[in-house]
Structure formats: structure tokens, C-alpha cells
């Protein structure tokens, strides 16, 4: 029960308006815990923005109540930044999400061997086949496949991992109460069964434009490396790679014909120093030091 009380304050702070992830973490570092933030009182809040001070006086307990209801359902979990199951690699990044809502198997998250597979939404059948094969083989080798459950390459890689050991993590772009994109309803349920669906947003959060890049940093942050299969040059998957590089993670790319516009981004990455990948062994070779 005690831990739950703590959770409530985490959730209450998560609903604060205009509170960036970085400031959330700074507040916790300063006060020790979200509960202390709320209990510190007006004198301590003087340095904070006006909006935030107002909110701290009148937290949105109604929303927190709804979150708690969602968490009470089987298979639903909450991981706070200080929780022991919180993914270690994700905690190391510059702006780790303070809260992770999890639907599925929490144990999958704490494992180290994770690899992100990302790519374009407008993939070719060949690319999807590759994504599926790589994900399946890597999952048999003990890797957990992370991705954004987007249409195209990413959904193919999730399916591939499910066909393997089933260890896969999908980072959602909205609250976990609904599936986005909607056509991946079945996939999301399968992932929740064997792997985990996670989101940094409380259930009920609607999609916003800025959620997409924000999700990318989690995908790359969870993983030892990011494998790019098919990405035309300006692509969201390239954004994931940018985060991976900022976070000091490995980047892998699969090449293709120079006449194929879908792999322009991959070629660009290889030129910039990403590792060219032909087989799963190329990835293992590079990640050996972590395993």
C-alpha cells in the first residue's frame, strides 16, 4: 500500500501541465521524491513557474484516480524512474521518461539485450520480409526487439519477434488505453501477451505531433543498438538513429540497390559510419562487448 501511495504522487506530478521531462527529474532530484514535492509547501515552490505552483496546490487527483484504475487491471504496471525494473539503458539517457506505463511482461524491460529495428512506413515487401527474418533470428539469439509498432518495417519486425521467442517491446505514441495505429489491434494484443507495450504517457493521452520524436528517443534509449531497414532520406526512423547516436548507441543499416529510393537513408547512414549489415552475425560482432 505504501508504494501505491508513492505511485499516486508520481502520477499526479506526471499530469502537471508544462512540466518537461528534464524538470520532472530535476524536481525529484531536489526534493527526493514526488511526494516530497507536493508536501514541501509554498515556501519551497517559490522558484517554480506560476502554472506549476498552482497545479501543485490543486493536483488533478481525478486523473490520478483513473490511472490507478487502469493500473489495477491485470498485466498493467507502472515503472517509475527509481523502480528497480526500470530499464537500465533507458535511465542513462539525457531525458529518460520519469514514468513508464507497461502493459504486458515487465521482466522483458529489465533485460539488457535489446535491439531496435526501425524503418519506413512505406516499405517494400522485400524489406518487410527482411525485418521479419532479422527480428526472428535475433530473438532466438536472446535479443528483445524494440520498435514503435508503426506500419511497415516496424510492425514486420514485431511480428518476426513474436514468431521467435516473443520478446518484443512496442513503444506507443499515446496512452495505452487505445491502440495506435488502429489496424495493429491484433499485433498490440499479441505483444502485450508475450512482450510488453509501453508508453510514457498516462492512459487517455491523445496523440500529439511532438509525441512522435519523443517516442523515438525511448526506442533508441531502450536498446543497445538500432538497425535501420529501408529508410528514405527524411524519415522518422532516421530520427531514431539520431537519438541513438546522441545516446552513444550502435547504429546498423541494411544496404540495397542504389536505384531503390527506399534505402537512400540507409546508405547515407553507412557513409556516415553506421555499420553495414548483411547478416545477424554482423550485429552480434559489434555488440559482443555488451553481451
Amino acid at each position, binding site marked *: 500500500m505504501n508504494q501505491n501511495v508513492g505511485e499516486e504522487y508520481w502520477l499526479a506530478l506526471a499530469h502537471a501541465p508544462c512540466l518537461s521531462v528534464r524538470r520532472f527529474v530535476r524536481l525529484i532530484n531536489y526534493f527526493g521524491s514526488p511526494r516530497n514535492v507536493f508536501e514541501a509547501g509554498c515556501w519551497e515552490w517559490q522558484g517554480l513557474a506560476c502554472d506549476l505552483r498552482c497545479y501543485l496546490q490543486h493536483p488533478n487527483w481525478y486523473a490520478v484516480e483513473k490511472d490507478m484504475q487502469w493500473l489495477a487491471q491485470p498485466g498493467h504496471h507502472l515503472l517509475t524512474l527509481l523502480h528497480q525494473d526500470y530499464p537500465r539503458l533507458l535511465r542513462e539517457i539525457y531525458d529518460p521518461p520519469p514514468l513508464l506505463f507497461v502493459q504486458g511482461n515487465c521482466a522483458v524491460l529489465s533485460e539488457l539485450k535489446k535491439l531496435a529495428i526501425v524503418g519506413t512506413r512505406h516499405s517494400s515487401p*522485400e524489406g518487410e520480409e*527482411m525485418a521479419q527474418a532479422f527480428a526472428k533470428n535475433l530473438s532466438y539469439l536472446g535479443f528483445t526487439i524494440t520498435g514503435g509498432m508503426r506500419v511497415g518495417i516496424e510492425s514486420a519486425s514485431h511480428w518476426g519477434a513474436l514468431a521467435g521467442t516473443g520478446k518484443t517491446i512496442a513503444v506507443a505514441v499515446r496512452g495505452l488505453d487505445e491502440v495506435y495505429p488502429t489496424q495493429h489491434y491484433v499485433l498490440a494484443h499479441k505483444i502485450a501477451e508475450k512482450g510488453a507495450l509501453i508508453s510514457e504517457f498516462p492512459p487517455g493521452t491523445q496523440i500529439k505531433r511532438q509525441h512522435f520524436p519523443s517516442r523515438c528517443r525511448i526506442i533508441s534509449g531502450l536498446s543497445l543498438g538500432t538497425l535501420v531497414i529501408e529508410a528514405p532520406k527524411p524519415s522518422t526512423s532516421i530520427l531514431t538513429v539520431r537519438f541513438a547516436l546522441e545516446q552513444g548507441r550502435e547504429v546498423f543499416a*541494411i*544496404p*540495397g*540497390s*542504389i*536505384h*531503390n529510393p527506399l534505402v*537512400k537513408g540507409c*546508405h547515407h547512414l*553507412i*557513409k556516415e559510419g553506421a*555499420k*553495414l*549489415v*548483411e*547478416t545477424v552475425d*554482423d550485429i552480434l560482432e559489434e555488440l559482443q562487448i555488451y553481451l
Partner: protein
Amino acid sequence: MSKAEEEYWLALVRAPNVGPITFQILVKHFKSPRGVFEADQSEWQDLKLKVKLKEKLQNYLQNPDWFAVEKDMQWLDKPNHHLLTLDHPDYPPLLRSEKIADRPPLLFIHGDAALLSSKQLAIVGTRYPSSEGEQTAREFAEYLSHQGLTITSGMALGIDGAAHCGALAGSGKTIAVAGTGLDRIYPPQHRELAHKIAETGALVSELPLGTSVQRRHFPIRSRVVSGLCLGTLVVEAPERSGALYAAKHALKQEREVFAIPGSINNPLVKGCHQLIKKKGAKLVEKATDILEDLQIYRSLTTPNKIETPHFSPKQNTNNEIHPVPSSTTTDSPASQPVRTKPKNNPSDLDSNDVQLLNLLEAGPTSIDALVEKCGFTAASVSSMLLMLELRGLVTLNPGGLYARI
């Protein structure tokens, strides 16, 4: 150099068991090939060579193959036939590099000998390419030759041949390094190609005339191909392909290696991928990647795609490559996207328009045929034609055929 001196070079190169390295040791010790023939016993004793080899060599020197040398000299008398010895001022400087210990002492040349000192790029690949790979080689060679690079290759079937064809379609400056003596042509399918290369480019061989096709000559030939060039581009090469020898030699000679990637399911590009992964070869998507890397152009603002090459309006008549001054780079065709707007001055056509007009020279042509011939997209061709029509340079005939006025 007097003729007689050349004859000694030719005679010594035919000595048994004397490869390029031994040849150089001998020349260094005895100062010149003539010195080798005229040396006395005491000089031979200082020479650090295996005793058996010395004996064999001295035996040969007693009775050199002057008959063959005579035939060589007859061949050299013919027009366009040249011989470059290692100490000749025209011997290609890149090939003379200290990095190449086994540089060929002699080069037989059929064609333009000056071309050997020009800036070159090797394009190599498998003998059994896909049609796509062949087309890529041709397009790269054509575009790069227009940019002033000489295309060098081994005249083998497949990618090598396609690269030569492309260069011939471009500026015509191409060098084929043969794996046989220059009095023979191998493979025989490339007889016609070899003649064309000799006309505008050069056929080169380090092997004396009369040398027949031998398996071992082909890997050795690769070191000359890569040694002549600033860089080597591997278009399609499966694992353990012979084409990879050129890349291997290029790495040893500290030259650039470029490789064109492909699908990971395509066995024909496994060797290229290996080069990128393990050997640090540069991945190449478009021809401008190579130019940028070799710093032929200082700044390329908008690199264009290889599918739509742009041809320089004035082709370099000499073999030197002039870096485009930065002030004109912005106007240079290579730095402009396909849909270039006509310039204010109507008499000043850009190279794409000129190319289109040249294609129309042949007679009224449909837009589809133009698209196929020039390689630009249909949209850009139609907009270019419209601009030309508005300027009164082109007219639209009945049946959708465009013609020059």
C-alpha cells in the same frame, strides 16, 4: 632514349624467372638494362640474388631472345604503338609510386600514351553481372568520363567491358589493361571494343608481345589497373571474385576504394559489402560521391543522381582535370538539379538543353524516345522541351514529334 637502349629493356623483360621486382634489383645494381648485359663476373658476384636464379639468368644473357626483340621493335614502329620504360619521363607517376614494389618495368601501349598520366578511376566488377549492374557501370563511366576522369579497367567481360563502353560513349578516354600481350585480344568477344579503345583511349600491357592467355596473369594485371588510378570502384563482385584483386591492390597501394551496395539478398554484391564492412571502402550511391571524395570538385551543392547525369558543356580536350572555381560552381551543370530554369540570356543554353537539341538533330523525335535516350525524367524532358519551344528553338510537329527549327 636511343633505340638500342629500348632493345635491352625488351630483352631483359623476356628473361626467364625475372619478374618486376628482380628486374628492378638488376637495373638498380647494374645501373641500366644495358649494364646487365655488359656486366663482368665481378659485378655479378656482388649481386644479392639466389645462386640458381643467377645461373639461369646468366645463361639467358649469353643468348638473349633477340629475334623476339626484333619483332617487338617492328610492332613499336607501327603508328600509335608506344613503349614506356620505368625511367621514361612519361611513365605514369601514380604507377611509379614507391608503394608499388612490383611496378611493371615496361608498359606496352597501343593508343594515346599521354592518357596514362591523366587522372583515372578504375571501374571493375564481376564477369557475370546483372543487367542492372552493367547499366550502372556504363552510366557511372559515361558520367565520370564527361567530368574529366579517365576510366581504367581490365577489358574483361561483364562490368569491365561495360565500363569501357560507357567511357567510350562519354569522352572516349579509357584505358584497358590487358592480361595478354598487345598483339592478342582477350576475351575475343571484345575485339571490336579493343579497337575502339585503341582509337580514343589506350590499351596497355606490361606483358611482352606474344604472351598468351594465362590464368596467373589476371590477378597480377589488377595491380596495374589499381596502380594507375586515384581510386577503384567495384560495381558488382560476389565473394572471392577476381574483381576484388583490384580492390585489394588498391588498398595496398593506399588508393581509395569505392563500392556500390545492393540488396543483401543479391549474391553479386557480397564482395562489395565485404569491402565496405571490413576494408573501409566508401559506399557509393551516385557518381558525384566519387568526385567529391577525390576532390575533383571542391563544392557540390546539390549532388545529382546517376540516373540523370549532366554533361559538362565543354568537354576537357586535354587530360588534365581542372577543378571548377568556386565562383562558377553554382552555375555548373553538375551542381544543378534536373529541372534547371533557362537562364536570362536566351542564347546561353545549359548543357541539358544542348544535349536535348543534339538528340533532336537526328530528326523529329517523340518525347518517349527522348526520355529513353537522354535518361532524364519524362517530366523534366517535357518541361525542357516547352522552354525550348517558347524560345523558338524547337517545334512540335503533328503526331507529338519534336523537331529542331
